[in-house]
Structures are given as C-alpha cells and as structure tokens.
C-alpha cells in the first residue's frame, strides 16, 4: 500500500502525549525478565491479549472437534460411536467451552484487550496487573473445565445451562460437575475483572481529543459489554456458589425435595428449581449479548474501512447498542416460556423489541457500504458472511420470541439451528473477520489472502449446509440433546446433510491453521496500515511499541488516522454531500 505512515514522519501538529514512560526511554523494552519468564510476568495488554486469543482459539478447535464427533454420532439413528453418557458429556463441554471459554474470552479478553487501548490512544489497560490476573484465572478455568473429562464419572452431563435439579448431587454425582462449577467461578471472576478493566480504561485513559463520541464503535461496544459483564457475571457466580452449596452442604436452594405443608405453609428447606433458571438466565441472556456486541463492534470497524467511508449513523449505532444492552437485562424469561410460570406478554414484547435496535445496526452496516468502494478482502468477506448468518439467526430469533411458536419449537433442533446461526455469525464469522483484520497490526505480517478466501468460502457453504436442515428437523419434532433418534421418522437424511456440512466447516478451519503456519514461515510484511485503516490503532507501528504510541495525530473526529491520511475527504453531512463532494468547507462535522 502506498499510504503506510512511518511513525517518524508524523511530525508537526502532533501533540505530545504522555505514554507512561519517561521521555527518551520509549525504546527500552528489554529491562526485566526475558523469554518465557517475560511472557509469564507480563502485564502488557498486548501480550495478555494475544495469550487470551491463542488460548481461546485452542479452545475453539478442541470444542469444534467435539462438535464433529457429535455430528458423526447423529449421522445414523442408533449409532454406537458414543454412549449416551459420552454424548451428554460432549454437548455439555462443547457448549460450555464455546460459550464461556471461546466466544467471550476471544472477544473481550483477546481482541478488546489488544485493540481498545490502541483505539483510544492509551498506553495500557487501566489495571495492568488485574489484567494479568484475569488471564491466568481464565487459563486456570479452561484447564479446570477440561479436567472434567479425566475425573471419575467423567465430565458434567447437564448441558451448558446446568438446570436444577438435574445438576444436584443426587442426579449428577461425581467430581465432573464440580470441576465445571469451579471452572465457571474462575472464568467468571476473570470476566468481571476484565469488565472492570475495560470500563476503567475507556473512561479514564482516552488520549487528549478522544471524546466519548469520537471513540470507534468497537470501543463503544466493548464499554457496553463491560457494563453488561458487571451486571450479569456476578449473578452467575453467586448462583454457582449456591449450586455448590446445594451439592455439598445440603442447602436445598434449588431442589424441591423436602417440601411439605405444615399448616398450609411450605416448610423445611423448601427450594425452587425455577430459581436456578431465573438466576441463570438473568446472567444468560445478557451473556448472549456479551457474546454479540463485541462482534458487532468488529464488523463496524471493518465495513467502513473496506468501503472507504465513515460509519453510517454513528450516533444511532451507539444508542442502538445501549438499548440492546438495556433490553437484554429484561428478557431473560424468554428462555422459560415453557415453564408455564412466567409472564408471557412482558418477556415476549421486550424480546421482540430487541429487533428494533438490532435492525438499526443492520441498516447502518448496509448504509456504510452504500455508495462505497467495496474491497472484498478476507476481513470484508467474513463480515458480509456475518450479515447473512446473523440475518437468518435473527429472523428465527424473532419467531422464538413469540411464546406460541416457542412452545412448538422449544428444545428442538429449530433452536439448535437458531442459536448456532447467531453464534457462528457473531463469534465465528465476525470473530475471525476481526482476526484477519487486526492480525497485521499484531504481527506486522499479513495472513495469506488466498488461503483466507478458501477458509471463508468453505465455512460459508458448510454453515448453510449444516444448519438449514436442522430447522427442518426441529419443525419435524426432533428434540435437542439426543444421542439417538427413531429411524422411521425420516430424520436421518437431514442429519446426514447436516453432518456433511459440519465436516466442510471442519475443513475450512484447516485452512486457518495452514495460514498461521504460512505467515510464520514465509512472512508477508504488512506495514503499519495495510488496509487504509481509519481509527487510531492504524497510526502506530505494527506491532505497536511497548507503550503503544510515541506520538499521536490530532484527534478531531472518530477516525483520526483517516483524517490524517486523507485531509481532503472529511465527513460531510448528507445534505451537502453533492456540493462539497468530499472537500470540506472548513467544518469537521463528525464527533461534535
């Protein structure tokens, strides 16, 4: 690319920004330990962010292999590949690993950790040591979770939601469920600390000129995610502690055993299984948005860059994200429609309403591309893939928000298809879009575009082949979480197609591995700003120096690097666009 900036050229109007290190020492990184010890003791957000991402991707591959084994099992109605208990353990671990230990940590532990300080011109996270603690808790939690496979009785088998009273000591004895609980308590604290850190960083460490309404949408979304984490995760942790007490100290918080009436009143350790569901989903539904908002943020960085335009409807986007977050705290019981014990219209309305801000985001993404100059690099392809996947998952999500339709499809493969389309849309399409997009920033080398495109197209095809038949299976009445199914109901052919699709997805991810190896063995140099990026992180070197910036460009809009590189092409209000045609009339409109 022609417009790579050398940091040394960015002279003149650059304000001096404290980088947290005394002047003249910016280059001194190698005091203190080196090698593995350096990695172990590092509090640099970039090192921690990378550790997070590498761990999360490893978790993703492990969990993906479990998915393939399950799909193999389901390719025939009475397969003997897995026993019932092995199957139950596999989907429990697959779901738990993907949700708790891949999607979230990859986004807010990995990408956010690495990118947010760069995007707001901060030298590091607000609490670097807490950040390191977060990572080590996360790693310990991940290992603890997987250790479940090696204890007597095997891993937990109660699904990723651990519904009471199936998760009680009577119904799920053994140490596997306990390692599951411990793992989630550890990673829960890790998430809470990261949430604190993100909020602190974004509120207090923005560079001069970086007002809240000049922050990139990715940073905005990470702020909102951080707040959601602080709302949701403590509830999960508390619920888990109570579950642990139920299992070991006979507290009967979630079990109805021992309930009987004395003088018409329930007496003696009379617990409620519904309580677990309420607590879990009070965490769980914000969690779903904790797993979505960061990824919305990623594609909102990518669309403008590869359309060579600003984000369309920036402020609307921010408010849409906030209202998604607000609504997401009031919809938890839409997972409980079929309990017969929740107020259906309330939760249905709030759930349906989430479609509105989500729709706004969709239109803003399309509006960003509208009249742009679209370059279909790998990150852009993955982002467009996200749009299609999330659209399908979103439409079926609206159907499920209607209680009668939910009654008909709850806990069937319809739901399995729905949440995989949403989650793969976000965590996989958008998540790996982010990886392809920021990889050059992290390593100063490109990922191979050709291999990246193979990865994308195979994933895209495999995705539809895997999950579309599952909608049909759900409507036919195939329940989820079954290891075998009747052979006379015509379900097998759809299952075979789904299994084939899953293996296409599997192959697509082999291309990513090859891509890593290629970029490691035969580096393609990236320069500092290979994509003509617009936000601050593309201003510094790739990879960035120890404390990120030696100097900064003026920050007058939400895309300082673009302004710096394209001084004639500042944002214009819509009405004046035709006349000014890319030239400014002295007014900088954005961000005021």
């Amino acid at each position, binding site marked *: 690319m022609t417009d790579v900036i050398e940091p040394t050229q960015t002279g003149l109007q650059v304000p001096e920004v404290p980088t947290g290190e005394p002047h003249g020492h910016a280059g001194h990184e190698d005091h203190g330990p080196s090698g593995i010890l350096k990695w172990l003791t590092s509090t640099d957000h970039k090192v921690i962010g990378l550790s997070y991402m590498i761990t999360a991707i490893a978790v993703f591959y492990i969990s993906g292999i479990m998915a393939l084994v399950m799909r193999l099992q389901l390719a025939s109605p009475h397969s003997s590949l897995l026993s*019932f*208990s092995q199957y139950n353990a596999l989907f429990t671990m697959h779901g738990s690993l993907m949700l708790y230990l891949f999607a979230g940590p990859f986004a807010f532990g990995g990408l956010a950790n690495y990118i947010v300080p760069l995007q707001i011109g901060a030298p590091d996270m607000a609490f670097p040591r807490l950040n390191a603690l977060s990572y080590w808790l996360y790693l310990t939690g991940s290992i603890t979770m997987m250790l479940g496979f090696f204890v007597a009785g095997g891993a937990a*088998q*109660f*699904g990723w939601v651990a*519904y009471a009273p*199936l998760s009680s000591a009577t*119904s799920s004895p053994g140490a596997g469920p306990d390692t599951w609980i411990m793992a989630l308590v550890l990673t829960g604290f890790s998430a809470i600390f990261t949430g604190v850190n993100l909020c602190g960083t974004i509120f207090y460490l923005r560079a001069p000129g970086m007002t809240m309404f000049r922050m990139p949408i990715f940073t905005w979304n990470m702020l909102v995610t951080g707040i959601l984490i602080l709302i949701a995760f403590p509830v999960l942790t508390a619920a888990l502690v109570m579950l642990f007490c139920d299992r070991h100290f006979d507290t009967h918080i979630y079990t*109805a*055993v021992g309930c*009987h*009436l004395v003088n018409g009143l329930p007496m003696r350790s009379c617990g*409620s*299984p*519904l309580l677990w569901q309420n607590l879990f989903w009070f965490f769980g539904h914000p969690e779903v948005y904790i797993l979505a908002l960061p990824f919305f943020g990623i594609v909102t960085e990518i669309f403008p860059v590869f*359309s*060579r*335009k*600003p984000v*369309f*409807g920036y402020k*609307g986007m921010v408010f849409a994200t906030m209202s998604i977050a607000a609504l997401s705290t009031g919809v938890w019981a839409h997972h409980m429609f*079929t309990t017969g*014990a929740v107020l*259906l*219209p309330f939760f*249905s309305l709030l759930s*349906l309403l989430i*479609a509105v801000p989500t729709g*706004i985001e969709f239109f803003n993404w*399309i509006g960003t591309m*509208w009249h*742009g*100059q*679209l370059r279909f690099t790998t990150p852009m392809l993955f982002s467009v893939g996200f749009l299609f996947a999330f*659209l399908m998952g979103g*439409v079926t999500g*609206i*159907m499920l928000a*209607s209680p*009668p*339709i939910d*009654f*008909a499809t*709850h*806990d069937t493969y319809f739901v399995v298809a729905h949440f995989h389309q949403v989650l793969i849309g976000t965590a996989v399409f958008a998540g790996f879009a982010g990886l392809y997009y920021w990889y050059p920033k992290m390593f100063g080398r490109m990922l191979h575009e050709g291999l990246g495109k193979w990865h994308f197209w195979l994933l895209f095809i495999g995705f539809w082949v895997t999950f579309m038949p599952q909608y049909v299976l759900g*409507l*036919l009445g195939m*329940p989820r979480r*079954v*290891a*075998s199914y009747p052979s006379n109901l015509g379900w097998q052919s759809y299952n075979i197609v789904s299994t084939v699709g899953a293996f296409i997805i599997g192959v697509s991810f082999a291309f990513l591995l090859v891509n890593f190896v290629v970029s490691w063995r035969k580096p393609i140099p990236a320069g500092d700003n290979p994509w003509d990026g617009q936000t601050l992180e593309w201003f510094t070197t790739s990879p960035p120096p120890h404390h990120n910036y030696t100097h900064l460009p003026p920050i007058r809009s939400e895309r300082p690097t673009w302004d710096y590189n394209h001084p*004639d092409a500042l944002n*214009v*209000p*819509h009405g004046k*666009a035709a006349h000014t*045609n*890319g030239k400014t009339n002295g007014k900088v*409109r954005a961000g005021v």
Partner: protein
Amino acid sequence: MGTANSSFLAGFDSVGAVDPSLTSAPPDTPESPGRRHKSARRRLAAAGVVLGAILLGGCQLPTFGAYKGSTSQARSTFHLWQGFFIAGLIVGGLVFLLIVWAVFRYRKRSDDVPVQTQYHTVLEIIYTVVPVLIVIGLFIATVVVENKVTAVEPNPYTELHVYAFQWGWEFQYDNGVKVIGQTTAAPTMVLPTGKTVRVYLRSYDVLHGFYVPEFNFSRYASPGYWTSFDLHVLHNGVYRGQCTQLCGLYHSLMFFNVRSVSPAAFQTWLHTTGAFQRQHPNSIGQLPAGIHANINGTAPGYSGSSGNTGNS
C-alpha cells in the same frame, strides 16, 4: 414396565373390538359454536397485523415446514407461525436484497474516495419507526394466539395428571386409571377427540419436557409446582410425543404416544381399564424405586380444587 403396558393394551383391545372406528379418522370434526367463536377471534388477531388478509386465508398458504396442528390450540399456533414466517420472509428478504445489492453494486470501481456520508436523519428515523410498528403488529398477533393456547376452560370434559420421571411417564385419569411406561415401552395417553382435556403436569425428579410435535406444544414438567394446560384434539389418531428437556442419561429414549379416540370409545376404555386395574392392582406398572407417588402432596384438579399450583 412390560406388565403395565400389556395390561393397558388388554383394556384397550377390548374396546377396539367394540368400536372399529377407533383406528380410522372420523369424517367430520365437530364444529361447535365455541369453535366458530374462536375463529372470529382469530380474525380479530389478524386485523392487528399488516398481513391480516393473508392470515385469514391461512388454509391456502403453504405450511412452511410446520405441522398444521392436531389440536385447536395447535391450529392457532400454526396460523401464527404462517404469519411470522411471511413477515420474516418479507423483512428478511428485503434486508437480504439490500445486502446483495450493496455488495454487488458498490464493488470497488476506481480509486476515487467516495462521498463521506455519515448521517441521513430522515432515513434513520424511518428505519427505527417502521420496525417498531412491525413489532407492535407481531406482538398483538402473539398475544391473541397465546391467550388461546394457554386458556384453560372452566369445565373441561376430563382431567389428566401427568407425571414425568427419569425416564418415563405416568398418566393418571380421574377414575384412578394409571398408565405408566418407561423408555423401551412407551406409555400411551388416551384422549377423547373433540373434547377439551385439562392436563396437570409435574415431575417426580428433574425437569422434563412434555412435547407432542403435532400439537405444536411443549411444557416443562417440573418438580415443585404444578402447571396445567388444555388440549382439544381435533381428529382421531396416534400422535408421537417425546421429552424435550434434558433429563439425564436416557433423555433420548423418553417417548410416549397420544391416542385420540371418540368420546364414547374413550369412556369405554376408561371404565374397562379401571375395572381391570381394580381387579389386578399389580398390573399397574411400577415407578422406579426411590420415587414415592405422594411426594407431590395433594394434586390439583380432583374435586375441583384446581387452585393449588404452588409447592405442596
């Protein structure tokens, strides 16, 4: 539970011999005034949505993969599904086309920097307000159908207590008839066609899901509290059911059947089976060890005490 099942069949077969119409579907579905009233309300529902007109002609529309529904409740759900599917098709299709258009039309053609448009207030207001209106429409349709589906009639034709357990079902009729079946021998619930039946649902142990695909309906069977709903089966027939909520090791095998027969045949079956079970108490299947049938206390419904839905 072989014994349970065979005794159950014994009772049933004798009925079948009396009434051969059991196995063939009846030609007519009873069209009571109540049902006509319901379809009028369905019209009202449809008026709430933009797609009202299409919904009214629901019968001609494709099923979009769903069951038309074998209970009157399921029919309502089915029409709602059609409405949502069409709405989804229109809105989703529109967004889909917009994406496709943007992706193909605005491919990079030159190195010119495009106009840096950032806001278009009118457009933004439109695509906020229109979705709100659509959501209101969907919500109204939802509430109308949901009220029908969850409505419980004050005077059901009969009541049924359903208990789920690891891994099977127990169906209790109000004359004391019990049908119990586990994994390998799925129990059959006999229902009267064209009559409203109240089902009280509960679990002896963990959560289970009472689900009959062709009824477009599922409900958790939970320990600790009773939940109830009405079924009004429209046609004679056998409908398969299965547990949908993960309940442990043999969750995959927790089947049951619903067999709907004419009210007369239902009565005969009920009395024959009742008499048989009174003479041969041992023929009633056993619940797995560790389950005590009375852990749930007084069941609601018998002798009209249907208000008891709390812990007991």
